[in-house]
């Protein structure tokens, strides 16, 4: 019984049975296999097929994304993941996630700060790369070479 509940917790946590292999999207059969063996045995083939069909209906179907960028940043004290997704919005109903005003404000502040930070870092790198490529090609846009700040 203990093993049975452990398996249930694993499925809830990871969406699949405990395994060393990389996580795959769970199939309806994965959830069906978690039904108690006694109950499973009592199901007829038709009932089983019907339950499987309803589970398949309830499972989210990920839409193809135009951009699907995921990476992790490990800052030793904590590990963060960053996900950037762009895709067609097929949602018909409004997303209804109740959040307090303070949480909403905090989310906005953090999102703007992160976006500004990434923008600044990326822009600086792009400008520097373009400047170096321009210089490597021997193009001098301004008379007199820029010898750096303080020179």
């Amino acid at each position, binding site marked *: 019984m203990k093993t049975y509940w452990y398996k249930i917790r694993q499925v809830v946590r990871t969406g699949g049975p405990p395994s060393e292999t990389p996580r795959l999207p769970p199939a309806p059969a994965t959830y069906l296999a978690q039904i108690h063996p006694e109950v499973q045995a009592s199901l007829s083939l038709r009932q089983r097929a019907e339950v499987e069909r309803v589970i398949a209906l309830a499972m989210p179907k990920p839409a193809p994304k135009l951009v699907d960028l995921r990476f992790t940043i490990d800052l030793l004290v904590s590990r963060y993941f960053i996900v950037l997704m762009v895709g067609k919005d097929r949602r018909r109903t409004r997303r209804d996630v109740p959040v307090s005003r303070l949480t909403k404000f905090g989310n906005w502040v953090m999102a703007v700060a992160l976006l500004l930070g990434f923008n600044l*870092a990326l822009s600086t790198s792009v400008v520097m790369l373009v400047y170096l490529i321009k*210089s490597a090609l021997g193009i001098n846009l301004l008379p007199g070479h820029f010898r750096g700040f303080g*020179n």
Partner: protein
Amino acid sequence: MALPLAILILGMAGWGWWLAALSVPPAGIVIAGLLVVYGLGVGWGSVVPASAVISVAIALLVAFDIFPAFWPANIHYKYWAYTVLVLWGGSVAAVCLLAKIGQTLRQRPGVYRWGVQLVLATGLLLALQTGASLYQNHWPGWVPWEHL
């Protein structure tokens, strides 16, 4: 794993040589050493922060027009721009290689992982030190050291 490791050791020696050539203060050398340990310990999660540190270092090099002592004053700036581009690309590649090896080690059992990480980190830091020593001992010979 032998080839990436050999490339990484050469890369670390290169880092050491250039850090010495650019007369980087001790804090910069400590940061380079910490990057090595961080990349080995953390794996792929280190790529973004470590690349940011590399880019900041390159930005400082460009913004303050820092040249190594042996760089001739009368040579066209484009050659320095090539060199900086190669240094930037090479350093980011080294960071990715370090992260790849670190990630491979993270999947190994605890005691084995710690042992290999310790040996590798020591070896790479020694390679860094060797690179700096080579510069201080006037290597390679084609650099006109006597005119510096």
